[in-house]
């Protein structure tokens, strides 16, 4: 299991201390690189704004992520059940990832306006792919002997999928979901840069234009903390969904 929260916290504290000392000793212009203390001061002083905009980004992100995971899972399962579908769809799925997001995002804004939809769509567009690919790989790695055994019990393809393939593929699927979560954070900010009136991505642009470097860093910090929490939530869900792995380790 995890060795605890202390090692990453200590490492983080060390790096921040080094940063703070460097800025002070070398007299760096705070407009170029504000010291961590200034960033923290900014966060505590503007907690309301950061939280409000953080909430906006979080809802876009979660909506897009949920759609991405569900779509990715369904595509993966269908590609496994229908061979022809896998062959037909796979190259097109890869193609969706070749489209530069900055090229599509403005069109989405054009279609759906300054609403949550273009942001969620951007997030979904980049997060479904790792889930779909890992689902397909996970499903294909199921022991063919197990499938044959279930067939002698009279199980059809959907039953085999539900009883053997999906549970067996869970570790791979969750690898995909974790990557999807990391990409979702970037995706949400990207969606906001193209056109929005609130959200952390919007805040970043505003701070940048006004030369408020401390504010920019504060926004990035909030985004990073949000991303880390979400990432670990996925990890906890994974441990919960595969609780049998804990038992399997206590060998007799």
């Amino acid at each position, binding site marked *: 299991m995890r060795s605890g929260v202390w090692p990453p916290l200590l490492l983080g504290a060390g790096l921040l201390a080094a940063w703070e000392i460097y800025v002070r000793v070398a007299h760096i212009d705070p407009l170029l690189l504000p010291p961590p203390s200034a960033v923290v001061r900014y966060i505590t002083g503007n907690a309301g704004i950061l939280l409000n905009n953080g909430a906006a980004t979080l809802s876009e992100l979660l909506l897009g992520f949920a759609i991405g995971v569900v779509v990715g899972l369904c595509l993966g399962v269908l590609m496994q059940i229908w061979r022809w579908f896998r062959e037909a769809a796979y190259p097109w799925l890869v193609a969706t990832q070749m489209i530069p997001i900055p090229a599509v995002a403005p069109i989405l804004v054009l279609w759906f306006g300054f609403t949550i939809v273009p942001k969620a769509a951007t997030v979904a567009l980049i997060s479904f792919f790792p889930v779909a690919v890992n689902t397909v790989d996970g499903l294909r790695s199921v*022991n063919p*002997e*197990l499938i*044959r*055994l*279930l*067939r*002698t*019990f*009279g*199980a059809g393809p959907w*039953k085999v999928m539900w*009883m*053997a393939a999906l*549970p*067996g593929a*869970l570790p791979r699927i969750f690898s995909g979901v974790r990557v999807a979560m990391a990409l979702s954070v970037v995706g949400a900010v990207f969606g906001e840069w193209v056109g929005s009136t609130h959200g952390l991505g919007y805040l970043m642009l505003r701070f940048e234009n006004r030369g408020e470097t401390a504010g920019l860093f504060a926004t990035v910090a909030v985004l990073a903390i949000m991303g880390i929490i979400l990432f670990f939530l996925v990890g906890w869900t994974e441990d919960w969904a*595969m609780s*049998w*792995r804990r*038992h*399997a*380790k*206590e*060998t*007799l």
Partner: protein
Amino acid sequence: MAEAIAMRVHGIRRTYRDGTRTVMALEGTDMDVPDGKFVTIVGPSACGKSTLLNLFCGLDKPDAGSIETPAFGTDELLGRVGYMPQQDLLMPWRTVTDNAAVGLECLGCDREDARRQAREHMARFGLRGFEFSYPGQLSEGMRQRVALLRTFLCGRRINVLDEPFGKLDAMTRASMQSWLLDYWQENRCTIVFVTHDIDEALFLSDVVHLMSPRPGRIIRSLEVDVARPRKYSEVVTSVHFNELKACLLESLGREL
């Protein structure tokens, strides 16, 4: 009096392609499996035993020949013949109970009902106290017993067991063989058992069928006229057992 036949295998041929060449796995395979008997197929490795078993449980179809099962009233064997593969194939995410219940669940049994039936048999299969354990926590022998329970719970008239004790150590293997015989004596069904261990075949079976190297066919069928119930220590050390063993080894030697 003629015995009732559970499975009549006649003139089976099965070939498959291996790259560019055609491999003949079975050619002219004939055998009868009498109803309610314990029948064993012994043969050298790669003699087509597994191919034959796949045909028996309906996972594969022969190129020529037929497998008749008068009791089923149909020739569709998939989903009707019980099968236990070499590997235990337990699902690591299911408890012992849930693994044992898999077969029943596939057959459309309600999940709770399947679990209840599985739990009722735990003691008989030496698994009491392990109902909620996961396969990763079990020894090889216990895993194999869960797999046997999974197969037998389905209550098939014909059960095909593919080297179920092949990976066990000698001691566990002997005790599992005795256990299987006891269980079979209480719950008569037809068993087709595959092994490459001649002692195992003789100790367990009513009839031993010897297979030739590829293309596999039955070259010798030997009735094992040893009274039941059989006791391992007595049977395998008896003079008659060794005569039968010599018979089989001789036939096998001629072929190799």
